[in-house]
């Protein structure tokens, strides 16, 4: 798995590449932590190259829910493939996370 973070204007974009399993979820956690404590209020998670996410990876997203809410940080996930999106849906995380099909639509969320 490979994770990269870039700042596009005021959008902090985290791109996840490959599989997020128990061991690589630590890197996802680090990236999330950095984004949230970096004072960014608009976080985009690019999941278009995310192939598989394990329960540990889902746990990372879940663990930041409260903090995002408390700090009023807006986070949007986009580009999830059908299989990955289904994993979010089955668990019910789609009700708590903003999931959009594309980057443009994701950015729209910040301006809407």
């Amino acid at each position, binding site marked *: 798995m490979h994770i990269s973070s870039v700042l596009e204007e005021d959008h902090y974009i985290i791109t996840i590449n490959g599989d997020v399993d*128990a061991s690589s*979820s630590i890197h996802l*956690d680090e990236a999330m932590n950095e984004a949230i404590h970096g004072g960014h209020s608009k976080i985009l998670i690019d999941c278009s190259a995310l192939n598989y996410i394990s*329960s*540990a990876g*889902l*746990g*990372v997203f*879940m*663990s930041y*829910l*409260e903090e995002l809410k408390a700090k009023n940080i807006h986070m949007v996930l986009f580009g999830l493939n059908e*299989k990955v999106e289904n994993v979010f849906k*089955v*668990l*019910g*995380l789609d*009700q*708590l996370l903003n999931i959009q099909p594309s980057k443009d639509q994701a950015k729209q969320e910040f301006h809407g």
Partner: protein
Amino acid sequence: MSPKSTVRLTTFTAVLAWIALTVVDLFLGFELKNNVNTGVPNFLSGTFLTVYIVALFYFYKQKVENADSINFIDLLWRVFVTGLVATIVSVFIQFFLSFIAGTKLGEHELMQSFLYHINLGLILAFVISTYMVWKKLILYQKTKSLIRTWQVFEYSFLVSLLFYFLPYQFFDIPFTVVFAFLVSLGLIVSLNLKWVAYLNFKQKWKSILLVLLVILYLTYFLVYIIRNSGNGILISDLINHVSVLAVFAFILFYAIASLLVTLFNLPTTSVFEQKLEEVVNFQRLSQSSQTGQNQDEIFELLLDSSMSATFARAAWFEPINQTETVKIIRKNIPNNKIQEVKDTFNNQRLKKTVLPAFRNIRGGGDSTLIENISDSAYKSILVYPLEVQNEKIGTMVLLKEVSDGFNKDGINIVNTFGNQAAVSIENYRLLQSAIENERYQEELNIAKRVHESLLPSILESNDHFDISAFSGAADEVGGDYFDFHRISEDKLVLVIGDVSGKGTSAAFNMSQMKGVFHSLAQLDLSPAEFLGRANDALSRCLERTSFITLSYYVVDTALKSLEFSRAGHCPSIFYKQSQGEVQLIKSKGLGLGIIRDQEYCKYIETNNLNYTSGDLLVLYTDGITEAKNPANEEFGYDRLQQVVQNNVEKSAKELQDIIIDTLYEFTQTKHIEDDYTTMILKFK
């Protein structure tokens, strides 16, 4: 033939042959003296002499070759004692002869001949026993070519015994040729004196003494033989016996060679002993981890070995991680002196702008140093960094009172010891961790048994339904959970769940889930109510990133209904016989522990279904749907539904077996990477 009977037979033969030889020679001597013919053929003398020699040959071959001890001094002692006995007897005879000299008996030729034969017997016994011992010494550290050369020599000697029957005498040309041939062979094999090197200083002195005495005996016997030669009445003249003469020359030469080599080896013995001690120390170091010695003992051994190898006066070993049990190991040096030497050394090196060698930092790259130091007591120092797997674990310091005390050889030997110590320490650590692992494995096995007991072993099928369940864990313990609880005659609660993650932490959370289930299930709550309370309870104990997915079913056999809620668990498969097809029961839901307050209940709903006979409910965990084949494809919902659809007529247990078999076939292994569980209900 057994060694014992060989010895007996050869002794008997030798004694008989000697008696026969003496009698025949006395007869022949009597003939010669008195010019009469007794009818005793001449060749008998030679025959008995040959038989005597051959018997002695095999007697000593047996004796020496089968000796238990290969101790060289013991062997030399044996030769010395044989020689001593022979010499004493011989001297006694001489004394006796001179005592009776002048008397008629003393002048009698036959008396002289008889005494000569006693001497002859003894000399031959001594010569041949010495030959055998020399053989053993020469063939120590033997090679194939050496054995072959020796065999040529020995067979030549045995064959040459027949030469005695030919009418050639001392220094006839054929005699000289055969003699020269045998002696040159003897000289060639005599060059093998390796055994000398294996003697220590004391043993060398002993062997010099013993060999010197052996040479003395040999000289005495040689003189005796020469003095008595040419006396026709004695008949058997050894000077004319080429084999005996050649062997005599051989053993004398080898004795002299041994003496000289031992003498010249004396000054270098201490070096050889030193090297031997190094080898022994090396061996001790290499075996130290097997003999269960701890690191401290290995350090100590390294220090002792290095000190004795370099003749260092004082030394210490300073481990980097010092604890209560691991401390500086000192030899001949007090603690305050260590600090003094360290300071002197570091100051000296700082002037040279080189990093101090005593830096207590991890990481390799330091090499062994030798230097002179300007200390009050010590003038040269050797600093060796001990590294295990490229990690410095300590520093060994050796000190000498003279400057330039350590040389390249010293460094080499210290490095060798150090490397071996490092290997031993590594082995020791590996052994320790292996023991530790063994213990963890045992703990895990216990955990596995406890874990297995957490899942119900018997599921009650009854008149209303047929039930079956199966659970497999990726590791010893897993996070999948299924259970049931009977609330009343008609009401049964079924639950299936999956704790996030796997292994031990998942198993702990799974056991929490079991506790929560059994305390809440008996309250006869609605599924949504149950999940709300379970979320509340679990929120207090799950770690931040953990959650549990669950499906909760209340089966009412009186109403033939199912009431259920889904907490983020994968949707169950339901087969309605009347409709003839399987479907996923999709409903709203959220995993337990994702929202840890009362908000949670908003995301949960309770659903209802009615069932009729022949309907099927298949509960499972994502270990099944997410199992991958070698092509990295997931088993998926579609395949699972298809398997159920194709086997709706089967019993719960049969369907379960088919699902598991299909799964194994798909993944092509029985080792699924996640925990996987299925629980199947077939309504009657």
